[in-house]
């Protein structure tokens, strides 16, 4: 089922991303500072809440694999919300990255790329690096499962 695959992929992305940020919250705070896009007063709020949001999306999407959201009601609405929030946030991150690349801002956002760290031991190309256009490409690829989930109606 396409939906199951999409949910699994997205859940994996969010859970791994959240795990990295929850393990090193201050490193993520510095990454948000380094991104230089969030106004100063909001930086701690963004840094504190983002890992929680990613975890929430990941958990809901993972649960939706095992308990299919059918019909209408709270659960399908929640699963639908997770898909939408995934798409929205992934889009925001991609735009933010592109903006910074065009601005020439130096960022090193690989520091909590936990999955990349582990996979990178065998596949050097996946090793976390400074964020660049290849990261944009990776983010665009991640948008695909999110977009596919949005095409579904919540009554399935």
């Amino acid at each position, binding site marked *: 089922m396409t939906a199951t695959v999409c949910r699994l992929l997205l859940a994996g992305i969010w859970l791994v991303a959240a795990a990295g940020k*929850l*393990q*090193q*919250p*201050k*490193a*993520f*705070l*510095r990454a948000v*500072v*380094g991104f*230089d896009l969030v106004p100063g007063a909001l930086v*701690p*709020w963004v*840094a*504190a*809440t*983002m*890992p*929680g*949001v*990613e*975890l*929430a*999306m990941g958990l*809901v999407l993972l649960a939706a694999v095992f308990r299919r959201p*059918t*019909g*209408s*009601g*709270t659960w*399908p*609405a*929640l699963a*639908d*919300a*997770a898909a*939408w*929030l995934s798409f*929205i946030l992934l889009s925001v991150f991609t735009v933010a990255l592109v903006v910074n690349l065009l601005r020439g801002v*130096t960022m*090193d956002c*690989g*520091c909590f*790329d936990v999955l990349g760290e582990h996979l990178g031991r065998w596949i050097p190309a996946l*090793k*976390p*690096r*400074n964020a660049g256009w290849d990261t944009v490409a990776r983010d665009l690829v991640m948008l695909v499962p999110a977009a596919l989930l949005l095409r579904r109606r919540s009554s399935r």
Partner: protein
Amino acid sequence: MARRRPRRPAAARRAVAPSRTWAIALLAGAGAAGGLVYNVLSPRGIFAPVPVATDFGAPAPAVPAARPTRTPTGDGPGDGATASVTKTGTGAQATPPPAAATVRVIDVAEAESLARQRAAVFVDARTPEVFAMGHIPRAVNVPSTDFAGGLARNRPRLNPEALTVVYCTSEECDMAEIVMEELKKAGFTRLLHYKAGWNAWENAGLPAEK
């Protein structure tokens, strides 16, 4: 598709299912609240105080000369490994002098020793905003984005003849390498690369300076 539950009146069904916007807001809000609680409660959270270095390390010893060490205080030219014997023990072997082109990489234990014993000058290659949030005690900030400015501002503390350790955030960033290249061009010969960077220093619970 067969229904397993009896139909409910349409109005009740709509009332039970939140609208899409509300559902998104609720999910985001719940996640955000969870993230906030975690950061407030966790000792690693962003609101947790940074252990500030009130007195990190001994008073400065005499300038380390080329003499072989009887106590692991300093380092001869190109031999920065002896200082870490006292600590966790990694990297406690002597190393050959670095080739002119390559810079030796040191780990967090060795970096801590050098910092504690004030045997090297630490250069933080990150941006000033992130530097201000916490850096290795007595490090100077020479951002990779403003090498000339950073060098000029910190001239009094930077000596091309002195042992200089450069670091940035983590193994993934390249800011330290950029700064090291510039330092080499500026005549710095005794460079060490603390590759694990600030993240590893912080994770090890070592003190910071703001």
